[in-house]
């Protein structure tokens, strides 16, 4: 039996789909069987980030409606054979999601994979509630920026009230990834520190991802940035994936720029 993780955010555009793709691939690189499912119906994007847009024949709505079976709809990644992908429907809208159908789909995926990662619609949209309902855990993605953090708090609030696990008296595990950190700005006090964000949201940290131009370059090519060993964002996603697979990986301090680090080191000799 696998674990179901919903990747969520308050507002859109914080890097949720990019995170889903990279964590999925990073987990697969740890030799775990992983499936990533695009729940952002009507705004299909995960296929592009994974470079699989031309391979989509059946989508998850067709599987839920019994028009296709899971085997037909699952697409194997070109980058790693442990990674599979289930596309969102492009023609329908988010209102097609129904609790019972989602539950059945998630249960079937859980039987076949070690990790089931759901790319949720933004927390303020419909469809979000159904994506999180049957998740065992949630990974919240924020940018170090006020609107993203405020909306994330609302999304967490909905998670806490709608999760099936919470309703059953259990806890749904929540972890935070802070994406697009610019070290120089944190140092100069122009960007929120991760400690402050954790304090405001009252949530555990899973990882920090630095701003990296390589992310756009990677999505241009449909090759998730975690494949690029030189990319600092890719390295961050690799560390986070290893953590999710149970490895103990120390939190890297990416909130210190190289020049800041230099100052610190030279400071020792003063």
């Amino acid at each position: 039996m696998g674990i179901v993780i919903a990747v969520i955010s308050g507002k859109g555009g914080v890097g949720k789909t990019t995170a889903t793709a990279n964590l999925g691939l990073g987990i697969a690189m740890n030799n775990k069987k992983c499936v990533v499912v695009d729940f952002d119906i009507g705004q299909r994007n995960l296929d592009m980030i994974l470079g699989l847009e031309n391979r989509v024949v059946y989508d998850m709505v067709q599987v839920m409606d019994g028009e296709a079976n899971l085997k037909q709809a699952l697409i194997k990644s070109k980058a790693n054979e442990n990674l599979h992908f289930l596309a969102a429907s492009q023609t329908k809208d988010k209102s097609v999601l129904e609790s019972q159908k989602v539950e059945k789909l998630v249960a079937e995926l859980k039987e076949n994979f070690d990790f089931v990662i759901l790319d949720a619609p933004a927390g303020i949209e419909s469809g979000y509630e159904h994506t999180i309902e049957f998740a065992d855990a949630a990974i919240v993605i924020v940018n170090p920026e006020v609107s993203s953090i405020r909306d994330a708090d609302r999304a967490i609030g909905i998670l806490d009230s709608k999760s099936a696990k919470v309703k059953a008296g259990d806890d749904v595990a929540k972890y935070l990834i802070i994406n697009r950190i610019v070290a120089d700005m944190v140092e100069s006090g122009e960007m929120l520190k991760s400690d402050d964000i954790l304090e405001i949201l009252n949530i555990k940290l899973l990882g920090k991802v630095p701003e990296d131009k390589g992310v756009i370059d990677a999505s241009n090519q449909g090759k998730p940035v975690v494949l690029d060993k030189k990319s600092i964002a890719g390295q961050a996603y690799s560390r986070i994936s290893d953590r999710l697979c149970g490895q103990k990986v120390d939190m890297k301090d990416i909130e210190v720029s190289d020049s800041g680090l230099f100052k610190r080191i030279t400071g020792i000799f003063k």
Partner: protein
Amino acid sequence: MFGFFNQKKSASVAKDRLTIAIMSDRDRTNGYPFMDEMKAEIMEVVQKYIGVKGVEIRKEVDGDMEALAIDVELDKNA
């Protein structure tokens, strides 16, 4: 940057603003369903002794401590 005598860094401004905004967001979503009823009853009780214009109730959270702050606005003309 805000001028020569650079006051507060924007990140700490952001932290303060977020803390307040999120607290009031949470209040609104986690408010008690009986709040309106309670307001009306408090008003009734105070009304017996002194004129009241309105009652405002807020839930305040400070770390582990939660409190209800009740403001009663008096009616000067009464």
